[in-house]
Every structure is written in C-alpha cells, then in structure tokens.
C-alpha cells in the first residue's frame, strides 16, 4: 500500500506537470500556426523579388544534357521555381507538346520544319528561335578499324543513302570486302534530319540500319563490331574518346577531325550544326519563364558548363548578344 504522503506528492507532481505541459503546449501552438494557403512560409515564393512557378520543357535528346544542366543551376538559385524536362526528340516535342501549347520551351537539334510551323500557327502558338550551342555531329567507327581514318562527304553519302553500299570496298577500293553495319539516329531525332540535310540531301536516308534515340546503343553497337559505322552528337564521343574512333570528314579541303576547336572555328564542315531552343512567346509573359530564358542565354557562353560538362561548343559573345536582343524584344512583346 502506498502511503498517503506518497499519494499527495504524486498528486501535486501530476497537477504541476499537467499545468506545465498545458503551458508549453499553448506556447508551442502559438508559435506553430500556419495560414490556409499551406506551407510554413519557410521557402518563401510569395516575396516580391522571389519568382516562382513551373517551367515545362520538352524536345531534342541532343540538347537535353545542356538544358538540364542549365536547369539544375537555375533550380538551385531560385528555390521557388519548379522546372521539368522531357527528352522526346525534336519532332516529337514540337508535334505532341509544344505546338499544342503544353510546354514552354522546345529544344531542337535542327530548325523548326514547315509542317510544325503550320501546326503551331493553327494552335496560335508563337515562338522565337534561340541558338543554344554548336554541336559537331561525329561519325565513329570501331577503334580496331585501322583501314579507315577519314571519309569524304561523298563516301559518307554512299554509305548512308537510301540505296547504300553493301560492303566497304564499294566505298573505296582499298577498304576490305566486309559488310557495313550501320548504327544511326531514329527518324524522330533532329540528328537524323540534320544528317540528311548536310550529307545526303535528296538521296534520302537508308532504312537498312539500327535506328535508336540512345547514343549509348549506337556506341555499344559500333564498339562491338570492327566493320560498323555510326553517327551521333559530339557529347558522347567527348566523354568517351577511347571507346570509339571518330573519323575525319573531308569536305574538299582535306580531312578534319571533330573537336571543340574545329567546330567553333568553322573548319569542321558540313557536320557542325547549331542547336536550338524555342521559347513560346506567350510563356515569356510569365516573369519566371522570362528570367529562365535570360539565364539560359547568359549560360550559352559558359565554357565550363557547355564545353566541359556537356561537350558542345559554346556560343560566341556576338551570337549571345544577338540572341539576348531577340529574347528581350520577345519578352517585351509578351509582357506588353
């Protein structure tokens, strides 16, 4: 049996502790309220100089690494902004998302095409074209393929035209009599369109090849076959220079190997190509999207990011100024 003394102390302690808990609770509650718009206001987002909102981007898988790198830095700098990006291929992005008004930007590794312009116009989507960077489309063979170091544009066309050479010795007599195995970009890809435009023109692209959107698949295919040939954007080769051999391209002035230098100096023709992003003018009316577009154009000359991290050729100061002017005009038009 507990003594009455014990019971008394226990009672007092209990009462005291109850009071203490209630007091602490009241204090706690007073400091722990929020308003009905949710959130504790820690991240802000409603402040005057804080911009916030979603940014939706789709399009080319070639521009994807560049754009997502810029987005990563932008998202870190502006905690209120919620950017997302999908890698859909240039054409897929235009026809499924951008020209139906569902995305704010569309990346493309070739200029917008007439039927896409028409679709955008039908849906009342206006846009401007911004140059994001320059890419050197790279033709690769197996590192063990000692017989070939460079190809002329005509030889390249023979390999990839719609009625292509079947064996290497059909392309050049000293090449071995072995079958050519082709790995290339799928027809939803801007890389495919650009390759046709630069090399094949009206001859058309062969359908006798392994088509894919993934550079990795092309690289694996070529790396596993001494008589294979493939092409893709420069970034993959830049990050894995030992895995594959890049061919020099002879456009009449002797073979030129792809590199950041030859692409920016304009020697690497005809396969160096501009990469684009298309912001919708209506979206630029929103402050956070306009700010992102400005940020992106600023970053196009950032060598560490564009060349070092991603592997494309940064824009020149001159190009950047032009793009910025174009962008500011569009923003002014949108924001009135």
């Amino acid at each position, binding site marked *: 049996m507990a003594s009455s003394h014990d019971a008394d102390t226990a009672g007092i302690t209990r009462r005291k502790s109850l009071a203490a808990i209630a007091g602490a609770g009241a204090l706690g509650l007073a400091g722990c309220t929020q308003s009905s718009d949710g959130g504790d206001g820690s991240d802000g987002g409603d402040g005057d100089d804080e911009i916030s909102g979603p940014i939706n981007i789709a399009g080319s898988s070639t521009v994807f690494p560049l754009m997502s790198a810029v987005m990563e830095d932008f998202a870190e700098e502006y905690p209120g902004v919620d950017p*997302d990006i*999908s890698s859909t291929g240039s054409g897929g992005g235009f026809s499924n998302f951008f020209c139906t008004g569902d995305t704010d930007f569309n990346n493309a590794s070739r200029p917008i095409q007439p039927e896409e312009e028409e679709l955008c116009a039908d849906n009342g989507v206006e846009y401007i074209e911004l140059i994001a960077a320059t890419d050197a489309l790279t033709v690769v063979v197996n590192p063990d393929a000692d017989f070939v170091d460079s190809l002329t544009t005509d030889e390249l066309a023979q390999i990839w035209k719609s009625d292509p050479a079947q064996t290497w010795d059909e392309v050049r007599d000293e090449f071995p009599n072995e079958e050519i195995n082709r790995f290339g970009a799928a027809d939803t890809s801007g890389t495919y369109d650009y390759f046709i435009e630069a090399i094949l023109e009206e001859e058309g692209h062969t359908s006798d090849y392994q088509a894919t959107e993934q550079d990795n698949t092309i690289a694996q295919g070529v790396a596993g076959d001494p008589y294979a040939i493939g092409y893709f954007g420069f970034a993959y080769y830049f990050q894995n220079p030992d895995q594959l051999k890049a061919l020099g391209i002879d456009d009449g002035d002797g073979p030129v190997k792809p590199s950041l230098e030859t692409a920016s100096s304009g020697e690497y023709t005809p396969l160096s190509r501009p990469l684009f992003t298309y912001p919708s003018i209506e979206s630029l009316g929103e402050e956070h999207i306009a700010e992102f577009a400005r940020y992106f154009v600023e970053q196009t000359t950032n060598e560490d990011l564009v060349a070092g991290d991603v592997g494309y050729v940064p824009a020149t100061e001159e190009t950047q100024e032009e793009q910025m002017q174009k962008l500011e005009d569009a923003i002014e038009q949108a924001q009135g």
Partner: protein
Amino acid sequence: MATENPNADGFGEVSRVRGIAFEYLSFGASVFGLVALGVLLVYVAIDAFDLANASPEWLLTYFLTLVVPFIVFCLYSANDRDVTRRALVALGGGLVAVAVLFSAIEALLVPIPRLNWQLAYLFVVAAPVTAYLAYVGSGGRVGAVGFGLLGRLVGGAALGLAVGTLFLVFDSLVWFLAYTLGVLPAVGLYAFGRVRESPRARTAATPVGLVGLTAAVFLRDVIATYPSDLIIYLWTIAVPVAAAGALLVADRRGRVAAAAVGGVPLAAATAGGFLAAGAGLPAPTVLLAIALTGVPTAVYVSRVVDGGEGLAGLGLPLLLAAGAIAGALIVEALGVPAPNPWLDASFLSEAPSRTPSEAGLYPAIVGSVIIIAMVAVLSFALGVGTSVFLEEYTPGTGPLGTLTRILQVNIANLAAVPSVVYGLLGLGLFANLLGLGIGTAVTAALTLSLLILPITIISAQEAIRSVPDDLRRGSDAMGATRWQTTKNVVLPEAMPGILTGTILALGRAIGETAPLIMIGAATTVFRAPDSLFSRFSAMPMQIYTWAGFPQADFRYGVVAAGVITLLIILVGMNGTAILLRNRAERGS
C-alpha cells in the same frame, strides 16, 4: 509402351529414363534462370555500392563485426549442434573452394571483371549461408523475437517515410479538418456504442463521419489559421497510434505499462520532430517515422517481456548497431580505404545533377511512391469490383451469360496489349479529354491502373472462382442475402488470392516506362511533386535517362544505385502486401 504391353507378366516394367530426364531438365531450367538473375543482381549491387573498390581489409572488418555476430546469434537461437557443424563446414569449406576455384578460373580461363574471390565468397557462400541460418534461427524463440523486433523497427520506419512522402502531395490541412471533424467523432461514437452496447451510437457513426468529411472539404478555405504541419501530424497520426498501442497493452498489463507504451514513443517522436525542425530536417517525416516505429516496437517489447520467453532476442538490433559502429570505428582507426558507394544518403535526398557524384533520385522516388500508392487503391477497388460483379452477379446462362463470356475473353486479351497503347489511351482520355493535364501524377496513376486492371481482374476472378460453392450454398441456406454471402463468405475466402494478383500487377506498374513517356511524364524534375496535378518523374524514367548519358559513371554507378533503390522500394511494397495477405489467410 511397356505398361500397355498385353504380353507382359505381372506389373511389367516402366522406363524411368523419361522421368529422370524431365527432372534434370526442369532442374537445369530453374538453375539457368536463377543463376542469370543472381549474376545480374550481384553486378548491380557491386556497381551501386562500389564494392569493386572495397579493399579486402574493409570487407573483412565488416564481416567480423556485422556478419559473424549475426551468424552466432542465429546459431544460438537455433541451438542445434548439427546446424552449427554444417554452417561452419559450409563457411570454412566454401572459403577454400571459392578461393581456389576463382583463382583457377582467372589464371587458366578468363579474368572475371570487377570481382575478386573475397567478393565472390561473400555473394556465393556467405550470403546464402546467412540467409539459411536466419531462416533456421527464426524457428527458435530467441530468433523469432529478434527478427520480430527488427521487422517492426525497419517496417515502422519505412511506413513513416512512406506516409510522410504521401503528405508531400495530399493537403495536410484538409486531412487535419477531416480527421478532427469526421474520423475522430465517428470512431469515438463507434467505440462508445461498443462499450455501452448502444446500437444507436454505432449506426450514427457513419453518417456523423460523412458529415464531418464533407464539412472539412468546405471549411478548408474558410478557416484562416491552422496549426503547423508538425502539430497536425502529432495530433492526427502520432497521438492516435500511441493511443491504439496503449489500448492494446492496457488489457493485459495495466495502466502503467500502457502509459509507457503509448507515452514514451510519443514523447520521443515529439522531441525528435521539434529537434529535426530546429536542425532543418523534414520535421513531420521524422515525427512520423519515430512514432510509427516506436509504438509497434514498444507494444512488441511489452508483449515479449510479458511472455518472458526469448528475451535475449531483444538484443539483436543492439548487436547489429554495435557491430556497424564498431566496424566504422575500426575502419577509421586503421585507415582502411572504404568504398565510396553511389547509393548513399545524398543519392536518396538530392535532385538529379549533371555530375555523377552529385546525382540524386529524390524527386523521382517521391513521384513513384505517390503514383504507386494511388495505383494500388484504384486498381484494387476497380479490379475487385469488376471481378465480384462478373463472378457473383452475372448469370451463367442465356444471352447475358454469353455477353459475360465475350467480356471475359476480351479482358484476357487486354492483358496482352502493349503498354504503349495504354499510354496513348491515357494521353487521349485522361490528359486531353478529361483535362487532368499532361504528365501529371493523377494522369499517370489512372493510366497505370488501367494498364494492370486486366491482370488484377483475372487473378481476382480466379480467386473468387476457387471459393467452394458449398460455402455459398451453406450461407444461402442460413438465409443470408447475396450481399451478406459475398461480404462474409466469398470475399474473406478469396482475399489472399486477390492480394497475390494485385501484388504481381503492382510490381509491373512500378517498373513501367513506355506509358509514362506517352503521357508526357517528365524525364527529369528537380523538385518533388507538391500536388497531384504537378508534373512528376518516376524512377524508371530517370534511370532510363541516366542509362543514356555519355559519362560512364552514370551508366554504371548511378544507374545501378537507381535500380537497387527501385528494387528496395518494390520489396518493401510487396512485403507489406504479403503481410496483409498472410493476415487474411490466418483470418479465414
């Protein structure tokens, strides 16, 4: 055939060749499949945890501090001389065998990439032996207690994290009102009705709850000030869970124990929550994890102490924690180079990045968990509803019966439609026509639910069909209505089978990429979704993207870490479902 030879005397002879051949063929088939899967998993694990760079000293340290004590614990629990002898022979003999065999293959045939014999020993011998011993050990009382406690700790923490993740998206303010105005009064009335045996109070519970829920939705924007999220979770989840735990214990062990079982975890959770808020951690999630871990653990400990058997098992978590800490200290003190795993805390809590070492999966994990939670609810409700109707309510004969059979065939065919087609359906129907938005979580959840619906329907139908007709007739003979028969007899009997089908289907849904691409789900997002209508990315999307990145570190390390994360979440999800199923099986 020998058996059919009419001229043979007696029983004749049966050739056993075919039987033996069949046995070995099926053995070979299973070995081939399992070995291939095993090799894949081993390499993924090696890449994800950077084990190829783990020094033998590092492996040895953790083997001695973590694995050996665990094995000893299992052997102690099994308390079987025979098992101990066999385990020691397997571990010792395996060491020699693997070392010799591995060196021989490397020297004579081909070098084995990214493996050494120490790792091979861990994967080929140590892991299976440990798993076997854990199984044997769990048969003993001590082992059962240890694993039970460990399971509650891990499961509670996982549940807390999952609930915390769901609240990132679902409006906690609505939940606060709904709980306070709807759930609490309804449960209170029901409990009052049970205790005082007042049927009126019990029947009033449902309408009161519904009125409260409706009121919550309407009052959401009317009320201006709410308690902070931390208080909301404390009030709506931690307190009720603690109270439920206390009630469970109160009957047997009295008030003091009940107060301790409810109060101690609650206090710990509250303190943890406020400390986390001070330290800048996600306080509500910390609170939920501690509360949902602490209360079941406390109830379990109280029950074990009450039973008085296998108390030593309660030391297992301590043993493992001490082993991990001791290993870390030794590695630190001796300066042993430790591997640098891709799958670490920052991988799970950071956004994707262009630098492999900084890349994280957090937004995609949240996206996947939210989608899968919605898919589970939707496909279970739709699947069970459809199958019950098709099995129990449609006539088997006549024109309607024919119609049902045509429907059945079509459902079976739908299961074989490529997932891209469901993606297109989702894009057209949910995203564009119903205006739920391109690439939103709600569109994805609906699309994936449709994708797995045929599988859930077919398996639920099979489960319902396997309930013996005698049970239904018996129920009918007692005068039960069809609704009562379905509710009280058919569904409880069929539930384990229905759950098995749903588990398999959900496993497919969580790994799908193609339909997500079609509905425009983002490849990469940098923030976790904060509403059902925000754009999201899912784990398979992000993993697929990484696999295409030019840097080799992405294609090996980061992708492997993503795959392991996906697998762990899948195992967690399936584990929950299997626990539910086992409970349903025991219940029936």
